[in-house]
C-alpha cells in the first residue's frame, strides 16, 4: 500500500495549496448511474403522452361545452320564436273574434235601425 501523501503542502503551479488540490481530486464528477438517461427519456415520453392525452381531453371538453352551449342557445331561440309565433296567432285570433263581433254588432245595429223605421 502506498504511503499517504500529506495534504497541507502548497502547489505553486495552480495557485492552490495541496489540500485544495486534494479536494479537487476528491470532488471529480461521478459517472451517472447506468440507465439514468433511459429513465429520463422514458419519463419524458410518458409525460409527453400524458400531456397529449390531457390536451385531447381538454379539446373534447371544449367541444362538448360548445355543443352544449349551441344546444342551449338553439333551444332558447326556438322557444323565443315559438312564443312569438303563438303570440302572433293569439293576436290574429283576437282580431278575428273582434271582426266577427263587430260584424255581428253591425248587423244587430242595422236590424234595430230597420225595426225602428218600421215602427
Amino acid at each position, binding site marked *: 500500500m502506498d504511503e499517504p501523501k500529506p495534504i497541507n503542502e502548497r502547489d505553486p503551479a495552480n*495557485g492552490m495549496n495541496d*489540500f485544495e488540490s*486534494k*479536494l479537487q481530486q*476528491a470532488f471529480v*464528477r461521478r459517472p*451517472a448511474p447506468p440507465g439514468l438517461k433511459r429513465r*429520463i427519456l422514458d419519463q419524458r415520453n410518458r409525460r409527453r403522452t400524458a400531456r397529449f392525452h390531457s390536451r385531447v381531453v381538454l379539446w373534447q371538453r371544449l367541444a362538448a361545452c360548445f355543443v352544449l352551449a349551441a344546444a342551449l342557445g338553439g333551444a332558447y331561440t326556438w322557444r323565443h320564436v315559438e312564443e312569438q309565433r303563438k303570440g302572433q296567432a293569439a293576436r290574429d285570433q283576437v282580431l278575428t273574434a273582434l271582426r266577427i263581433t263587430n260584424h255581428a254588432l253591425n248587423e244587430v245595429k242595422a236590424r234595430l235601425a230597420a225595426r225602428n223605421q218600421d215602427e
Partner: protein
Amino acid sequence: MARNWQPDFERLVDEHQSMVFSLAWRMTADRGLAEEIAQDVFLELDTHMARIESPEHALFWLRRVTMSRSTDALRRRRVRGVDLWIEIEENHSASSEERSSPLGARLEQLLTTLPEPQRAALVLRYQEDLTPEEIAATLESPLATVKSNLQRGLKLIRAKAECNLKEYLRPGKALGGAHADG
C-alpha cells in the same frame, strides 16, 4: 452563433448527466435522491428547452436548477424530521465500493458534515471549478457571501481533516492558507 444553436435534449442529457448527478449527490449525500433530482432537473429542462439559448446557457441553467432542487430536497427532509446526518453516514458507508481513493472518500464524507451553503460553495468550486463570481451567479447569492462561505467551508473541512485524517498529514507541519477566492 447562439441564435442558430438548436438544443438537442438527448445530447444535453448525455453531456451533463454526470455533472447533474454528482452535484445532487454531493449536496444530498443520497444516491437515490440524487437520481430523482437529476431526473426532475432534466424533465424541467425539457419544458424549458425553448428558452435555452446556447450550450453555456444550458450548463449554467442545469447547475443552477440542480443546486436549487438539491437545497429544496434537503429542506423537505428537514421538515419531515429525518435525521439527515445519520442518513448521510449510512449512505456514505454503504457506497464504499464507489470511492476512488480512501482520502477522496473521506474528504467527501467530511464535506457532508459542512453546513449547506458552505457545502454548495465548495462543491461548485472544486467539482465544477467555478470562480466565486460564477458560484454567486449560480447560487443567486451575493459575491461576499459566497467568498465567506468558501473560506469558512475550506477552513472547517481542513480543521475536520486535521482531526480525522491525521495519517495524511505530515507531522509538525502547519497547514497552508486557504485560497478559495481564487
